[in-house]
């Protein structure tokens, strides 16, 4: 490395100490060779600063955003997972389960003479008959809907997987 050039570059960049700066300023004023080199590097420095940035294609931003959308990364993870929603769902299910348990336990009557468990359901409450459910038209349509939904979800999952592999 050329020590004079190195010092001059540091001087131009402003990375030398105040003492060095004062020494170099004096040298530039007094030494003709130093001054000429300084002018040369200063001009070079200005020239380097004029370099032009390259321009990507017109649809660059669109392509980036489209890739993000394709990956189904609609939101960064921090925004996508809201802990309050998860807590809300958890609390709802916990309360429902506890309420159901309390209701069931309150209506169970166990007699010790024989193993005989009876659940006293409230008046007017009838459990549906299983045989009627499987043969009803609504149930059949419900099954068809479930199958279509499952196929649709499987298709979208495989598409996403394929796109991720291509990227």
């Amino acid at each position, binding site marked *: 490395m050329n020590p004079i*050039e190195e010092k001059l*570059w540091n001087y131009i960049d402003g990375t030398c100490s105040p003492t060095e700066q004062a020494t170099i300023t004096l040298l530039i004023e007094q030494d003709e060779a130093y001054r000429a080199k300084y002018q040369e590097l200063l001009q070079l420095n200005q020239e380097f600063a*004029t370099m032009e940035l390259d321009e990507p294609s017109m649809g660059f931003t669109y392509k980036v*955003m489209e890739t993000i959308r394709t990956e189904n990364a609609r*939101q*960064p993870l*921090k925004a996508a997972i809201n802990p309050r929603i998860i807590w809300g769902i958890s609390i709802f299910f916990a309360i429902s389960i506890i309420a159901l348990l309390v209701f069931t336990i309150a209506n169970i009557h166990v007699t010790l003479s024989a193993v005989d468990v009876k659940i006293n359901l409230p008046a007017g409450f009838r459990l549906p008959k299983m045989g009627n459910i499987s043969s009803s038209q609504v149930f059949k349509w419900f099954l068809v809907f479930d199958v279509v939904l499952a196929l649709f979800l499987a298709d979208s999952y495989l598409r996403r997987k394929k796109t991720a592999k291509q990227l």
Partner: protein
Amino acid sequence: MQSKLSDIELIEQTLAGNQSAYADLVKRHQRFVFTLSMRFSKSREDAEEIAQDCFVKAFRALASYNAQAKFSTWLYTIVYNTAMTFLRKKRVATESIDEEGAFIQVENHESAYDADNVENKSRSFYLNQAIEQLLPDDATIITLFYKGEQSLEEIAQTLGMETNTVKVKLFRARQRLKDKLERNLKHEVKELI
């Protein structure tokens, strides 16, 4: 039209689920990211691929950006790492590039210029041409320093090097760039610098 919001404000909006804020961030930084990518790939198609990959990676990791460093420094770190991975994949390791060999084509290209052509070309054309002939590391440091508004400390952070190493590398890169300019312009270099 580009957004007048700061990078941090745009990041906050993006994290809140506003994707158009991220599109504004991309528009703001795309030229520089693309230029940095060009320093490594030397082909527009590959550079676009690298730059696109960088912005997607940055989007995924946006929640981890802690705003202690400038967003640009954080983004350029992603660009540098992505570009290095790209180079490794292409098996064009920076150190293995035969500098002299790399310029055979350039010198032939240069010989095609006649005096009139040289006069007609703009100064920035020759400068960009010389930068393209530098090794990726040299070209990156020069670009970050002159166009990225990055201090030596920030460049060191981006490249994962010591500040003093970057200082020495910058000095050498400038020397090499000057040599390339001289080589390309021959007699015209006196006019240019």
